[in-house]
């Protein structure tokens, strides 16, 4: 809504489109581009996509609706929202867990965004189409140069801070309304070229060929669950924070739930159309994981007509996908810290970005550290944050309360009572299953042990800090929820 009369003292999105692009920009990350097409192809192609789509509608969209609705209802960041629900005291520490996980996530994500920035910059120097270009030595040379990796990490955090200093409307919104459509256009342009390459059919058949028997494999459903939940960023505090800046008459379920879940996955689908035809047309290996973008793909640009254009489009798009996520993930901590301390927004942005920069140095210096942190927080830290947020909504606030008070208020689509069971039982059960599955799958591995340390120490630390700061008070007027029973 554009009416100035509807503004409040707290920042708000300037437009509906700005909110929607912030959600998509946050959720679309590097994983959408290199991971989805490969995971789909490895797990039955079309069969995987059907399972994935079902999970998006049944679990991810309802979960996102809950998270955005809590943010809209409380109009606070993660710690303030938790305090409103559970009352002052140690349990507010669950909000601290979400905050810590976000800071940890950004600490290794920022160096990775730095990789994409380095490649985007080199695409403008026509490096990838020069005769002397060799992809593996190029990547190895970059990673072996600490001055370069730290410089990229520093530039990324400086850019993130620069955007966040301008606030929600003038900073985040202005970037995402341009960056997200630019990312989609980049991928669309590459798609047009990719699907017309000789041999592109094989890539399309790999990703979209239907192998129905895969629907009977548990591994297909586990892969679809993991992709859907991690890709949509459910329960990471992002949707809660973005939702806290919604305006009074804004809808939650249609934009914050359905559009976000399906829209961000649509970018992954577009990436499948864009990338895998190229991979197969040039006889490359599709199973190279993250190195697909940094080693495998760069070697084909020199062989393509006007390859420099495709290199620029691909790496700029790749950078935008990563950078918009970095902005909004960092905003989670900035919103919360500025609300919980006496720091101004400017001071908070500098403090949070400075801390993330400092914590990110080990990951900038070593790709092994980055991989370790990604494994630990991806498998246990992020599901723990999801469990905290969805657990508080499902078992303390109560989904029915949230549904009648916030979800269906000004809603673009009506959400029925079926939603309560999904939020209260299904999402928490799935998150517990995923954490247990990953622990079983990597039992005894140092990364699994580190994950268990995170699972135990983060909630304990959060509880202890908030109990100390808030004196272990019983729920007062702000902590109204008597229980999660509906």
């Amino acid at each position, binding site marked *: *809504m554009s009416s100035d009369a509807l503004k409040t003292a707290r920042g708000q999105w300037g437009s509906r489109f700005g909110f929607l692009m912030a959600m998509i920009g946050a959720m679309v990350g590097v994983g959408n581009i290199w991971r989805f097409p490969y995971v789909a192809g490895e797990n039955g192609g079309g069969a995987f996509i059907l399972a994935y*789509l079902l999970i998006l509608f049944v679990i991810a969209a309802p979960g996102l609706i809950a998270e955005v609705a809590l943010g809209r209802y409380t109009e606070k960041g993660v710690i303030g929202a938790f305090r409103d629900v559970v009352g002052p005291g140690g349990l507010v520490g669950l909000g601290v867990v979400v905050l810590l996980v976000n800071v940890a996530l950004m600490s290794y994500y920022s160096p990775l965004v730095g990789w994409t920035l380095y490649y985007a910059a080199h695409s403008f120097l026509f490096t990838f189409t020069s005769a002397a270009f060799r992809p593996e030595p190029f990547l190895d040379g970059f990673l072996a140069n600490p001055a370069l990796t730290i410089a990229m990490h520093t530039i990324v955090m400086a850019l993130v801070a620069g955007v966040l200093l301008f606030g929600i409307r003038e900073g985040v919104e202005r970037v995402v309304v341009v960056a997200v459509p630019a990312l989609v256009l980049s991928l669309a342009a590459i798609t047009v070229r990719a699907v017309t390459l000789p041999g592109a059919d094989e890539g*399309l058949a790999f990703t979209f060929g*239907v192998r129905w028997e895969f629907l009977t494999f548990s591994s297909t459903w586990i892969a679809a669950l993991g992709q859907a939940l991690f890709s949509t960023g459910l329960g990471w505090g992002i949707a809660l924070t973005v939702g806290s800046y919604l305006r009074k008459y804004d*809808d939650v379920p249609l934009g914050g739930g359905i559009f976000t879940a399906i829209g961000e996955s649509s970018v992954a689908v577009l990436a499948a159309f864009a990338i895998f035809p190229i991979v197969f047309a040039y006889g490359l290996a599709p199973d190279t994981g993250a190195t697909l973008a940094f080693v495998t793909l760069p070697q084909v640009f020199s062989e393509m007509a006007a390859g420099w254009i495709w290199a620029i489009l691909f790496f700029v798009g790749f950078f935008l996908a990563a950078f918009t996520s970095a902005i909004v993930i960092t905003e989670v901590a900035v919103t919360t810290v500025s609300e919980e301390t006496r720091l101004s927004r400017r001071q908070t942005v500098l403090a949070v970005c400075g801390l993330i920069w400092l914590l990110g140095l080990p990951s900038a210096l070593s790709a092994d550290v980055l991989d370790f942190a990604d494994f630990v927080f991806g498998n246990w830290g992020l599901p723990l944050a999801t469990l905290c947020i969805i657990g508080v909504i499902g078992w303390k606030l109560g989904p029915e309360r949230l549904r*009648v008070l916030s979800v269906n208020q*000004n809603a673009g689509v009506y959400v029925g009572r079926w939603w309560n069971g999904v939020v209260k039982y299904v999402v928490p059960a799935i998150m517990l299953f995923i954490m247990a599955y990953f622990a079983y799958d990597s039992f005894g591995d140092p990364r699994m042990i580190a994950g268990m340390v995170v699972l135990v120490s983060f909630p304990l630390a959060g509880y202890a800090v908030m109990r100390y700061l808030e004196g272990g008070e019983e729920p007062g007027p702000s902590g109204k929820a008597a229980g999660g029973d509906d």
Partner: protein
Amino acid sequence: MPLSADVWAMMLFVVVSFWGVAGWALVRTMRQEDRKVELLESQRELDTYSPKALDDLREWIEAHPDDPYAADAREKYNECVETLRTTDRHFYGWSDERIARLEKL
């Protein structure tokens, strides 16, 4: 290698179920936004619940009169009823008969 019919079918299904649904949601929510802005500019207030959602809210208030959130829920309910009574044009599909039957809580 020509693509098989099932690959074509799946690609079509994917385009419709992902880009089609996302596009539908985007267009629908942006149109709803335009309608809300138009109503707010002409009458400054907007009905905040659909008939079904307001029924749910009333049922919940009546089932949980002493709930810590009941006062907030009543406020939201009464605000919507008041707006429906004092405005001529509504965002949701409210009939005059249905509005006439509404009572504040």
